[in-house]
Each structure stands twice: as C-alpha cells, then as structure tokens.
C-alpha cells in the first residue's frame, strides 16, 4: 500500500534524519502548529550538525510566545541547547524582550551557532520557490537594507528589487490538525502558516498529525496540502505530557542540566 503513508511511531518517522541534515521546522513562534513529538524524538536520537530553517530559533519555550499562561512546550531549543544545531535560518530568532535570553541567543553569543536572518515574507517565499521549482525571484522586501548586502538588485517598474534564491531542505517537520492515510493534510487556524509551505519544499516531509482519517475522510475542496508533498504521517498522541517543557526539564535535570 504505497499510498498509505502512516508510520506507527516517531522513532521510525525520523530514523533517516542524518548528521548535518537541514530541517524545516514550523511553529509560528508558539506551540501551535509545531511538531513537538518529532523534535523530541530527534533530540532523543542524538543527531547533530543540523541546520534548522524556521520562523523563530525557538522562542516559545523561554518567552512564552503563543501559549496560555502557566504552560510551556518544548521547541527547537532542546536541540540547540544540546549542541545539535550548527546553523539557524530564521526571521524572528530571539525573544522580543531582551531579558528573555533563549538557548539560541546564548549559543549565538558564545559563537557556537550560525545565524541567517531573513525577512519573514522572503523566508516563506524562498521556501515556496524551493517547492515550486522556481530558482530565484526578485522581491522589493529588504531593498536598501542590511539583508540586501552582497545580493544582486534590479529596478523593476522603477522600484529596487533584491534577488533571492529558493530554499529547500532535507526534511520538513510538519504538524497537521488532520491527515488522511495518503497524506492529504488540513491545519487549524493560524497554525497553517509555515507548515503548508515547508511541506512542499523538503526532500522528505514528515507529518505529526493530531488526527488521522481514512482516504476520502477529508473534503477535497478543503485540502491544504495535497498528499503529493507528504512522505510520512505519524499520529500525535492525545496526551502531550511528553512534550511539555517541565517533562523535558525533569529528564535533562536527572542527567545533566544544560
């Protein structure tokens, strides 16, 4: 059944993620739309030298972005603070409030991690281009600013545009609200954001789905990510205790506090 992409557990889903791989990680900033179980499993596997491409560099776990008071979920930070990440490509890398120093900011200040800051729309568009086979594009965003430094520019209709190249990755970690067994996906609310773009541009797209239905169980008019983009679908457990920050801290506390 090659059109059935459901794999039973997270370990199997990320088994082929290799040292040095590039990974798209969604989550606008908070836990919504973030594939925390995939991140947790990858941390458990100990893969290193990763490049993460994501809207943030993990701000939710430290700064409480997008999460109702009192709760906190793991995010990219668990890979960063354990030295697994070589480079981050992000638009919103650090907490808005400078007093909330994230694991990424700490690693960055220690010179342990590379950063490429990309305007959010250019990041989304570069990933879309990667998925769509567009080699590069001219955007007015960032013209005349730091992000245009060293890049080609061109006046189009009298306005300066910057040449930006497509961005692809080895893997995408996507979180969907519902998937069918063939890998057609729908999201919920604002959690669609980068997920639906990243799903198109990775060599291997791995989906953590809150619910899995049979083929035909999704309205064909409402499918946001057609299954052509999806390689694996893993059911996300209803109980999110394993991906709560407190669970993680209890685990690493018992071993070696970061």
């Amino acid at each position, binding site marked *: 059944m090659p059109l059935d992409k459901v794999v039973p557990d997270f370990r199997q889903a990320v088994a082929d993620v290799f040292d040095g791989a590039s990974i798209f990680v969604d989550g*606008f900033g908070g836990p919504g739309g973030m594939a925390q179980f995939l991140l947790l499993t990858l941390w458990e596997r100990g893969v290193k030298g990763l490049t993460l491409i994501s809207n943030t560099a993990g701000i939710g776990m430290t700064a409480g*972005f*997008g999460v*109702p008071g009192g709760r906190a979920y793991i995010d990219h930070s668990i890979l960063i603070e354990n030295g697994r990440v070589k480079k981050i490509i992000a*638009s919103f890398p650090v907490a808005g409030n400078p007093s909330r120093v994230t694991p990424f900011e700490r690693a960055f200040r220690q010179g342990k991690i590379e950063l490429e800051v990309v305007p*959010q729309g250019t990041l989304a568009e570069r990933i879309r281009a990667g998925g769509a086979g567009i080699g590069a594009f001219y955007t007015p965003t960032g013209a005349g600013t730091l992000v245009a430094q060293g890049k080609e520019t061109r006046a189009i209709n009298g306005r300066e545009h910057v040449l930006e190249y497509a961005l692809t990755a080895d893997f995408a970690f996507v979180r969907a609200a519902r998937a069918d067994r063939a890998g057609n996906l729908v999201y919920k609310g*604002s959690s669609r*954001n980068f997920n639906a773009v990243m799903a198109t541009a990775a060599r291997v797209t791995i989906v953590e789905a809150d619910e899995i239905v049979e083929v035909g169980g999704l309205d064909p008019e409402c499918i946001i990510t057609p299954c052509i983009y999806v390689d694996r679908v893993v059911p996300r457990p209803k109980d999110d205790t394993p991906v709560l920050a407190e669970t993680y801290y209890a685990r690493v506390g018992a071993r070696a506090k970061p």
Partner: protein
Amino acid sequence: MADMASLLEKPRLDRDTLAMRAALEMPDGAVVNLGIGIPTLVSQYVPEGRQLLYHSESGVLGYGPMADPGQEDMDLINAGGQFLKWVPGMAFFHSADAFAMMRGGHVDISVLGALQVSEKGDLANWMLPERGIGNIGGAMDLAAGAKRIIVTMEHVDKKGHPKVVRECSYPLTVRGRVSLVVTDIAVLAMTPQGLLLKEVAPGWTADEVQALTEPRLLVAPDLHEITL
C-alpha cells in the same frame, strides 16, 4: 528654545491616547495590519461605524477581538502571539500567501512601531545595535508592501534621544515609505518638502516638539492640538 531637561519631564500622551489618535487614520473598509506593541492597541479605538478588515501575518484575515481569558486557543494567534477569538468571516492562509498579500499591495495600512524614523521616510525598527541581534519578522515585508505606512512610537527613546532623525543610524527596515508618524507629542506627515508638523499634544508647542526632533520640521499653517 525650550529647555531639554524640563521638556523630557513634560506630560505626553499615554500609549492608549496615542493609539486613539492613530485609529482616526483608518478609513472605513480599509485592510489594516497592526504591528506588535502600540499598533496592536489601535484596533480598540477605531471610531464607531467604521468597519476594518484586519490582516495578520500569522495567516488570518478578518479577525476580531482578543480571546476571552480561559478561551485561548494555541491555533489562533496574531503576529504578536496573542490569542484571537473565533469570529465569523475569518479566512486562514499559509505564510507565503500571508506575505503575498502584503508585498502585493493588498494591505491598505500598516501600523508599525519604530526605533527611528528619518525625515526621508526611512524606518528602522528591527534591531537595537547594542543588542547585536534582532528580529526582522514581518516588518520589512509590511513596510515594503503596504499601501500606507503609519508609524506609532514615543517621540524620544529611553535616554531622551530623538527617534525622528535626519538619517537612521540603526539598521533599516525600509527606505522612504513612511507616510505618517504619530508620537506621544506630535503628528508628523511626510511631504515632498520634508516632515510637516501637523498636530501637537495638548500643552505642547511647535518649538518644543522641534527641540526633541533632529531634522528641521515644517510647521503646518493650521497646526493644532491633537483632538480625538
């Protein structure tokens, strides 16, 4: 010339009043994107009878008020990570589409905070050089793409330095696209001749505003106090 030290002590508009003044700029039916901070407050003060269509780069169009306490949903946030209420008429879209809307000129008004605004309409709002790292986020796309850019900010920074400057010394967000600056002491419009001082906060004079502003201001013939 006014005395700097005493000017810095002089009462200015609070954030809510500043947002109220900015809210008057929103025409009926406009598509509006509100940045993080003071801009977000603007939606609370839109004059009655005006219907706006709110866009958020988190992938939401047509959102309404914030969620009630206890009703927060992690799957429905704005760009600042605040929780929105589920209201009829919303539409959701992915990030490439969210920014296509901005860059493509489909957002009428973007209200942004600023670290500095120059007399040429340049905007710097993503990195304090002393921090050495910053969040561009969606600001550059908004600033590059929205039809009209309104900046809301305090007139001077925490050290009392003017934020309205001749040339931005902080890393730029966009060049030459700011059209109106609403601060806690003044309303300044970008004109081909330069920055035009149109309104002052109650009790403030043009000279006093000028004293806290780096570039030379033009003063509108009908200069008046901000009214709400």
